[in-house]
């Protein structure tokens, strides 16, 4: 890919570009708390993740993993506390963070009545990328045969692979994955692994919320959450 980042001006195929924007660690959170109504989903989370790390977030359902990822992706604002992602302030510099981050959540954010290729081309237009990268991205996740078919008829695994292909288009500096392996077959799981490896190989950072123990070999650290709190490192929930 040779497109230019709309905000940074860096070439997307520049291997050094992934780690040269902003300053400081990939993620630095200071007592971040998020409350929904009266229920705290995150409680005074302090977190520092260096660039180039692959960090797995683990914990029971409702432990706060998804909320933490969504705060880092700037989809949710902290109720209290502050933080910086890729050197940019979570609240004041959302656009800078968004242009450098890819978040793949439970939902794949695809348009049901568009084809896989059309979904990817639309993503290219939103991110100011050349649309001719879409076929190659679909080929990397093994979906080039169904590129012209509507997403409505796809299985969950196929949808997840399209979402992975969309992430491959951009070469993000920070990859945030929320339960990316859930319900996927082997080929789709391998596609997720490839995405993580490709991001880290470029100097980027991957943070993955997952229950998968088998993939622990990919990580530099595993963090555990319980009741909205990040447990001290080395403590298993």
């Amino acid at each position, binding site marked *: 890919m040779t497109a230019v980042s709309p905000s940074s001006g860096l070439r997307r195929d520049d291997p050094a570009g992934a780690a040269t924007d902003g300053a400081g660690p990939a993620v630095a959170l200071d007592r971040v708390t998020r409350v929904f109504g009266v229920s705290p989903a995150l409680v005074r989370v302090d977190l520092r993740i260096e660039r180039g790390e692959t960090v797995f977030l683990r914990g029971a359902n409702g432990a706060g993993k998804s909320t933490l990822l969504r705060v880092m992706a700037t989809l949710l604002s902290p109720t209290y506390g502050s933080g910086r992602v890729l050197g940019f302030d979570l609240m004041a510099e959302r656009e800078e963070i968004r242009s450098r981050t890819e978040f793949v959540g439970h939902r794949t954010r695809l*348009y049901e*009545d568009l084809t896989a290729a059309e979904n990817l081309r639309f993503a290219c237009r939103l991110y100011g990328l050349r649309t001719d990268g879409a076929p190659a991205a679909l080929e990397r996740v093994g979906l080039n045969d169904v590129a012209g078919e509507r997403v409505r008829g796809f299985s969950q695994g196929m949808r997840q692979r399209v979402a992975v292909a969309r992430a491959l288009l951009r070469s993000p500096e920070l990859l945030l994955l929320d339960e990316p392996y859930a319900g996927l077959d082997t080929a789709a799981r391998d596609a997720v692994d490839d995405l993580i490896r490709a991001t880290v190989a470029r100097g980027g950072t991957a943070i993955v919320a997952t229950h998968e123990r088998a993939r622990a070999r990919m990580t530099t650290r595993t963090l555990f959450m319980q009741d909205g709190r990040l447990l001290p490192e080395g403590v298993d929930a």
Partner: protein
Amino acid sequence: MSVLLEARAIAAKDLRIEVRGRYALAAVLPFAATLLIVFGLALGPGRATLQTTAPALLWLAVLFASVLSFRRSYEAETEDGALEGLALAPIDRAAIFLGKAAAVTVQLLLLEAAVLALVAVLFGLSVGSDPALLICAFVLGTMGLSAVGSLFGVLEASPRAREAVFPLLVLPLAVPVLLAGVKATAAATVADTGAAAVTTRSGWSWLLLLVAFDAVFIAAGTLVFGYLLED
């Protein structure tokens, strides 16, 4: 990428989805047609009554059809969380508002052409008296409705807002559009309806209200849409 190019990409995507889903053709148009036929039957066979009430019924059908179209426009964004994708994209928030408003405007104008033809047949309304005034009234009125619907349609992401808040916000705000639209449409068909008090000149003056309404809500949507979209 400029705001207009981003808005064009979003509008093109919405129109493509609409063409694929054929929602307007399958649901909105039959709804509007049924509404008009029922009113026509309720009012009886008196041609003068039908012609006098036709502009109001026409705009009522357009209003209800537009609410369905706004909902459909945002349903596509919430089916699989696509609205999150738009929120995370490094694009101007105004582009999302403008793109969605433009797509709904195009859909509604096509729908209105069909509904207008239906009214002309069922109610005997002549659309040839002042076609320029009629076209301006529908284009400006539709732009206004689309601006209001696209601005508050983002609340569709919330299930509670979908059922309660959205109609409460949109329907009262649409009243000026309905009033001006009905008056201008009546003026555009004055020669055939015989409504002597309504002149073509007064019809053009009602368009000023539509222009002002459009300017206010397009500007408001451009400025505040981002705040509605963000957490």
